[in-house]
């Protein structure tokens, strides 16, 4: 979505919700404050112009470098980035929303960061959020049925985290 005034219309509806944007990028994106994401999404689907009536994908990107030598050189602070790819079937336009979260809530390893769920906005978010929870470890508050979807229910850890270590053993099956 490259249209002029689009960013301003979100700003006007939700003052302070837009915390960053990059409209010159390959896929222009808007960064939303974590606490506001569900409200902004509901507005984008029902009131904004054009209406983004379809959610295509939710992705979590783990910005963390486990190698200390390489980590000293990177330009970013460790964080989790949740990327929402939206689509408007009427205007045939796409929109990318990003949300930055701490890797662990309160910086305590194992405490999952929380983010409002958008299942109330698009029902397809149900499975997509379960997948992000399963593989990247994000707790979606307000999700009706947040449990693992691809991994077994008793799996330990979040495989798509960069510091994830493959278990050596799972019910007697050798891991490495």
């Amino acid at each position, binding site marked *: 979505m490259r249209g002029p005034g689009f960013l301003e219309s979100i700003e006007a509806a939700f003052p302070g919700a837009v915390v960053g944007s990059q409209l010159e990028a390959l*896929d222009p994106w808007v960064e939303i404050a974590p606490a506001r994401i569900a409200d902004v999404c509901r507005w984008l689907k029902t009131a904004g112009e054009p209406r983004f009536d379809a959610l295509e994908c939710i992705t979590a990107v783990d910005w963390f470098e486990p190698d200390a030598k390489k980590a000293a050189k990177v330009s970013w602070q460790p964080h989790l980035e949740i990327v929402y790819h939206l689509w408007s079937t009427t205007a045939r336009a796409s929109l990318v929303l990003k949300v930055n979260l701490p890797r662990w809530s309160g910086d305590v390893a194992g405490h999952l960061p929380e983010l409002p769920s958008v299942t109330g906005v698009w029902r397809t978010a149900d499975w997509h959020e379960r997948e992000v929870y399963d593989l990247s470890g994000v707790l979606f508050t307000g999700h009706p049925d947040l449990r693992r979807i691809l991994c077994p229910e008793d799996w330990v850890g979040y495989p798509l985290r960069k510091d994830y270590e493959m278990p050596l053993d799972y019910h007697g099956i050798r891991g490495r």
Partner: protein
Amino acid sequence: MSNLIDDDPRIIEFDVRTDEMLVNMGPQHPSTHGVLRLVLRTDGEIVSETEPHIGYLHRCAEKIGENVSPRQWIPYTDRLDYLAAMNMNLGWALTVEKLMRHEVGEKARHLRVLIAELNRIGSHLVGMGAYGLDLGTFSPFLYAFREREKILDLFEEACGARLTYSYITCGGATADLPPGWLQKCEAFLDQFEPIIKEYHALLTTNAIFVKRTAGIGVLSREMAIDYGCSGPVLRGSGVDQDMRRDGESIYTGMYDGYAFEVAVQKDGRYPRDHSYPSVPKEAVLGDCWHRFFVRMLEVVQSMDLVRQAIDRYAACKEPLGEPMKLAEKLPVGDAYLETEAPKGQMGFYVVGNGTSIPWRVRARSSSFSNLSVTHELCRGCLIADVPAIVGSLDIVMGEIDR
């Protein structure tokens, strides 16, 4: 939910209410198209709740993508939708090309259209044949595989593989078509065209088939969009959307100059209505029959596109060009691209960080979203209709579990 069951005419007809029972279908069940487990909550023959359990085929494809270069990940894309591996290769190759702002030459472009559309025919043939199996008829399956075998022969000649091709790759294709291939492809199309009538006679207009599919599993337009459905499932509900026409310019540019009409019902009519059997009276827009019919129309549409691509490809005299290097460095940034694979919109997301290994790779599969609508479609249907509904979504577990 209880209202829905109380209002169901079939309940009144059978006039039975028994204790609820949990029925387990799969993960090894012939009608689940791979390893899908469905847990049904039933009241006698009526299903009140369906819970799909997925993940039996999870192979950490995305994690592997974070450890290999984009071209090395091409073979893993083969194994997403293994019935349309060429389309998977194409989706990933285009996404990487979008991130690198790379554009392939004319010849590679027409070659890609030709190969991808041919694979779409193959994929829809499996979808059609397997759907027949789901409904208890064996012969359409054999008819479909007889023709698909010829497509596989063509692919084998082009790239050496029959299922996992890794043919289309970042920056072009691994090799040019061998001499004489185009003639063989044309001969196949000529031979295949009249056969489609047989398929329509065997399934589309078959009274039993119509009874099993028409009016079953009706997916409304709004629900299809809300659940992120795509491809024939979305178009079967009457939503006029096809990424080959509506997608991003790097993808739609591939189809520049190609004439095709999106297979969707508009004002009660399908494109080129006169040349196909008419829609049966019992069929409701968005039901299993329509989803199946859209696939059948796309077979003809793809044949048209292959014919056009053959002419354009043959007219290109320059060489195909070399694909990207194996360890080409990716720029910092991210790119997301959706392409129209046979099963629906296949999205790939890649995050580059200046090295040749992507920081993050994501595959958004159409079957994943299409399957998530099952519990809505199966609510209140008969147990025997569950395979009919799941089959009409034409899912492939490879791309759901990744």
